[in-house]
């Protein structure tokens, strides 16, 4: 096991990444019964389940490190908005199908690169779980990549809506490469990768697909930030209210 300070930082890190996945999974689940075609309904529900399952695994490792007898459900259902450490991109409302696909594509790319590096982590429990997670992400990344190509070279309307989604979401992409204040310490110990290299790889792989479709990366200079420190958009509170109401109304219920 590691020294106390590393464990505390690792706990923070795992919660950040798990929060991303839990909130994104919840957003995706909102498509259940509403997707444009049946196959997509099944796909988005499956991807939602993958994300929530991955969040669950990461929370389980986190609570073990924390060693305070908290369960993964307590982290998910009994923390308030300011205690969530997810990046803001995942909490934005699901929008239209183009918006959801653009977000998945950008996030899946990031998540894939991150978990690929996590497979080499010095923290053995993280590397073990990552080997499983990275396979799941790669399957989902193929799905979102295919849709970006289809929408980007599809009709005028699909191209227009997809570009509109990219323009709207782009300011939220930079936050993916921030890990609050835990990063330097854990990078030195070879527990997490350097995020700068992930950012470079991410930009390359996103650009490669966009170039095949005439979709453009917007030229903006302002980027949102703050999620890793508990600052969120107004949307997260509403999402948590819906997600947590049952657990909070019946705190110790078993079923």
């Amino acid at each position, binding site marked *: 096991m590691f020294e106390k300070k590393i464990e505390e930082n690792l706990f923070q890190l795992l919660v950040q990444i798990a929060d991303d996945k839990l909130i994104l999974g919840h957003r995706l689940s909102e498509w259940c019964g509403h997707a444009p075609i049946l*196959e997509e309904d*099944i796909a988005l529900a499956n*991807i939602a389940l*993958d994300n929530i*399952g991955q969040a669950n*695994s990461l929370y389980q490792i986190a609570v073990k490190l924390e060693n305070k007898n908290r369960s993964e459900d307590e982290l998910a259902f009994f923390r308030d908005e300011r205690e969530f450490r997810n990046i803001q991109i995942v909490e934005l409302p699901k929008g239209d199908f183009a918006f959801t696909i653009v977000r998945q594509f950008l996030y899946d790319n990031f998540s894939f690169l991150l978990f690929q590096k996590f497979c080499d982590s010095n923290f053995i429990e993280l590397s073990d779980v990552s080997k*499983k997670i990275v396979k799941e992400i790669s399957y989902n990344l193929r*799905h979102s990549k295919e849709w970006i190509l289809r929408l980007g070279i599809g009709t005028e309307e699909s191209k227009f809506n997809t570009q509109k989604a990219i323009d709207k979401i782009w300011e939220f992409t930079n936050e993916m490469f921030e890990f609050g204040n835990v990063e330097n310490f854990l990078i030195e110990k070879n527990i997490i990768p350097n995020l700068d290299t992930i950012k470079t790889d991410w930009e390359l792989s996103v650009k490669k697909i966009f170039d095949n479709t005439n979709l453009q990366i917007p030229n903006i200079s302002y980027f949102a930030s703050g999620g890793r420190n508990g600052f969120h958009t107004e949307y997260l509170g509403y999402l948590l209210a819906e997600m947590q109401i049952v657990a909070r109304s019946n705190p110790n219920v078993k079923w």
Partner: protein
Amino acid sequence: MVKKKVFEILSQVFDPEIPVVNIVELGIIKEVICENNSIEIKISPTYSGCPAMNIIEDDIKFQLQKNGFENIVVTKVFSNWTTELLSNETKEKLKSYGIAPPNRINAIEINNEKKIFCPKCNSSKTNLKSKYGSTACKSFYYCENCLEMFEYFKET
């Protein structure tokens, strides 16, 4: 041996979503530790989000208790589960149940595609209809020969 007996009992526990394959054959039992009067079973989910895990955990406890065991702990571990753990015999069971068994991961690709054979008529004239299916471990195919939809257990 106690361990042997435990494995026999675990072979009576089935994945509720694929009721022809038991959890030992599925490769999700990672370790069985028998010490003094307690038993610890380590299980690993096939996919992170597998919703059957809690039911499987309850079934393991139920079956062991029914056979007189006490102090049973089921621990979840997150190992790199792969369909390579499925034996040919297990794959046959899937096939006769109507689910096309997973290809080997290094199976030969033809035109960049791995051939998926229809579990009903063995035809290779099949098309992917949906990458995602009723559970995380399956996708949907259509057979051009017998004109039936079938599920394929994805290789991973």
